């Protein structure tokens, strides 16, 4: 048996955990991981592999293996995981920086964005989560009103990627671009796309995003 085979089996197991509509498997999974000494970030990381697999199956143009109902149920189970794992995250050290976070217009997916928000919050960032399907104006107004250090935008769908570019252009027009550091992420986003639209950073996953936000705040200090 090759390592690749083991990896596939593992992802298949994770998707099974995430697609259990009763939410029993996700609780058992988190509990067993906690008991084995795994830290909450690594558990989130594992579950994200499962989510990515479901996302890939949903977006596969050749043969869609997962449907809307699968996204809803896996999202619900990720929320259950957050409920279980959030109390175990390291204590907050408030004041590291203010982050405005949201999912761009046309996209109602909130799981990836919420996990990233929870990760940042547990690391001491102050979070202003402005939700999903946030318009360009909504992002700009939030930046104007709260003067955050960081603006984080998420997009799961390729069709909504242009919204990220619009927000960055809007910030420039509003004279706010120099005041805020912009990080983008989500299933549809790539590092090259982030560079193309003029974002300051790309978060491959929540751990990578957290590292980049920390680095930015250190530079700022």
């Amino acid at each position, binding site marked *: 048996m090759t390592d690749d085979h083991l990896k596939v089996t593992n992802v298949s197991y994770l998707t099974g955990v995430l*697609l*259990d*509509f*009763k939410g029993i498997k996700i609780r058992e999974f988190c509990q067993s991981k906690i008991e084995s000494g795994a830290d909450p970030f690594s558990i989130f990381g594992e579950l994200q592999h499962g989510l990515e697999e479901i996302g890939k199956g949903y977006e596969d143009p050749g*043969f*869609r*293996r*997962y*449907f*809307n*109902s*699968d996204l*809803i*149920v896996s*999202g*619900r189970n990720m*929320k259950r995981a957050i409920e279980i794992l959030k109390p175990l995250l390291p204590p907050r050290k408030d004041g590291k920086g203010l982050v405005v976070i949201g999912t761009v217009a046309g996209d*109602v997916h909130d799981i990836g964005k919420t996990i990233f928000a929870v990760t940042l919050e547990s690391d001491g960032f102050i979070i202003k989560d402005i939700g999903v399907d946030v318009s360009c104006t909504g992002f700009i107004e939030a930046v104007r009103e709260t003067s955050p250090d960081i603006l984080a935008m998420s997009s799961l769908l390729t069709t909504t990627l242009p919204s990220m570019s619009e927000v960055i252009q809007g910030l420039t027009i509003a004279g706010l671009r120099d005041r805020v550091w912009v990080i983008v992420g989500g299933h549809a986003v790539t590092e090259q796309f982030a560079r193309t639209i003029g974002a300051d950073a790309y978060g491959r996953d929540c751990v990578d995003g957290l590292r980049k936000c920390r680095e930015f705040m250190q530079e700022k200090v």
Partner: protein
Amino acid sequence: MKIFFLYSGPFGEQIINTISLGGLGDQVSGAYELRPEDILARDGGGQGPDSFFENPGSFIPADFPCTTADLLIVLGVHGQLSDLVPCIAGRLGARSVLYPIDDRDTIPEARKTISDELAGMGVHVEFPEPFCSLSRSMDPFIDEFLKFFGRPLLRVFRDAGSDRIHHVEVLRDTPCGSASCIAGKLAGVDTGDLDSLTRFCYDEQHNDEADNYCLAEMDPRHPLMQEAGDLFKDALFGGCGIPSTKDTILSILQQSGETAVEDLSEQVVGRSSGNGASGCITGRAFDLYLNELTEENQIIITSEGTVKLS
């Protein structure tokens, strides 16, 4: 009546769970999860990629149970695997097939072929879209099923001398179980405040914190979840004696006479409540109600695109 489920994923599991626990458990003869990857990973005995479509019967999994059923219910199975359904219906000896469509990707690719093939076998098939839109059928097995599950049907009891709901009796639950789940939360809700009542319906219908919630597709281009919300809202309004969307359509036609369908739609769609009137949020629900009112001989749709009372 014996029921067999052919399903895939949590959408199917939730419905099987609801139906089994909601009164038909002793009539379930079996369930089988048809995973697309399991079917498509097979090479069909080296017959090439088109072999599935040429001879789908050879792709019935070896571990498919040996059992019989009167009614085959197909849930969330990938549209490209739908050619298997007539073969499986034949294997089970099914007399009727319920093939609900709650997601575009589960629409059978060869719907007409499947219908014709099943008809040739003497098997009746219906494709409700979404599942909870189905309220009546000429088929005896589907009709029997609809005594328990389908379009929600509610009876509302209020506190004496008050608009507040005392309890709600679910006469027919949605197959996903969301109707009975919401009904359990309605005690104490004020039916005099239509806006709040309406918001409560739509919010709870897809509330993923609930035990059972709607799993239909919600893409604005194919708003089945929103349509299901309309159907539940109207079931609740009907149970409360509040005018439903159908009542609103008839009321407008009484007041305005013959009206262009587009104008009627503008007055009904997107106006889910307010001032004692009630509409729906989706054009799909509006079209469904218009068809039903036509079938009930209450309205006539003319060839000029207008609608009038019969």
